[in-house]
């Protein structure tokens, strides 16, 4: 697997204020819903806890436009897909995070559109 390094988002809102660089998290779970929208897209997924109970997470990515220009398409994620996301957790302790990269079921690794260089 190739590791893609991407930089934090140029936030529509304040990225640094809402997400914690000291709380990186890797989430492996099942896609519930993919909201392909601006100014940020959201991936909703269920991650099983130690007892096998599904815990719902919402993970923010870049804008639709940033994702599209990186090769994402509206159906890149479908409900039921197993994915892995490297992200930073929200400071407020909720099950939200900002994605750095997303690994799809076929092994493709997508930049989460958070690069600060181009959209």
């Amino acid at each position, binding site marked *: 697997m190739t590791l893609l390094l991407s*930089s*934090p*988002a*140029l*936030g*529509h*809102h*304040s*990225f*640094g*204020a*809402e*997400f914690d*660089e000291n709380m990186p998290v890797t989430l492996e779970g099942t896609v519930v819903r993919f*909201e392909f*929208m*601006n*100014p*940020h*897209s*959201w991936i909703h997924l269920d991650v099983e806890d130690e007892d096998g109970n599904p815990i*719902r997470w*919402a993970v*923010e990515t870049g*804008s*639709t*436009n940033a994702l*599209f*220009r990186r090769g994402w398409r509206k159906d890149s994620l479908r409900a039921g897909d197993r994915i892995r996301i490297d992200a930073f957790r*929200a400071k*407020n302790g*909720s*099950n*939200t995070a900002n994605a750095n990269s997303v690994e799809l079921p076929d092994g493709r690794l997508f930049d989460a559109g958070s690069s*600060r*260089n*181009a*959209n």
Partner: protein
Amino acid sequence: MTRLAIGVIAALLSFVPSVAAQDDSAFEPPRLENGRPNFRGIWMNGSISAAFDVETHPDAFGTRGGQSAIVDPPDGTLPYLPGAREVAQDNNLHRERDPVSHCHPHGPPRAMLPPFPMQIVQDGDYVVFLYETEHAVRIIPTDGRPHLDGYSSWSGDSRGRWEGDTFVIDVIGLNGRQWLDQAGNYLDANARVTERLTMIDPDTIEYESTVDDPTVYSEPWTLRVPLRRRPPDVELLEYGCIEGDRDFADVVN
């Protein structure tokens, strides 16, 4: 021939080409039928760090660091009046106030800074700026008409003119709620913004913006960033920002 003479000749030979190169460096822009420089195309700020903070700032989590985009004053520091920098610093602590985070237009000069493309359309007497973010549009007449009377908005009222091959835009009528960057630097409704766009090579427009705002700043100051031409396959996309303007709680639920 002495070593000194060889050195002198070598120096002359190296000097002559550099002078010639300097003469050739006056870039001749592509032109429209009306003789004006052709700025048509899709462009984007080439100094993205300015979108985070127009002054010099370090790289940090969520912030791309970089040198100040302020070229005047020469020290790159915004010449705030006493007390005004404290307002900016308070903004920085409350970035949820940032108008752009609520999908409002950036307004000039910030509109030129985000890492999203903008398109320039030229047609007759008009120069039009189409910004992807927030779907902001600036339709800038160049026929010498006066400013609108008593108008106020996020992007203000723009009037354009050509000074040689430089397109100059005079902007008043800003609503005074604009930030200049994500760091909370700002201007108010008394600001007059003078923008200057000059094509310096086929793929670069130098963008300068002078802000004269006597109730926030002690003197006019000038920001400069390069606008880089985007590749031919880049086109403006919809940016329906309000759809995603919601709190975390709404997202999770």
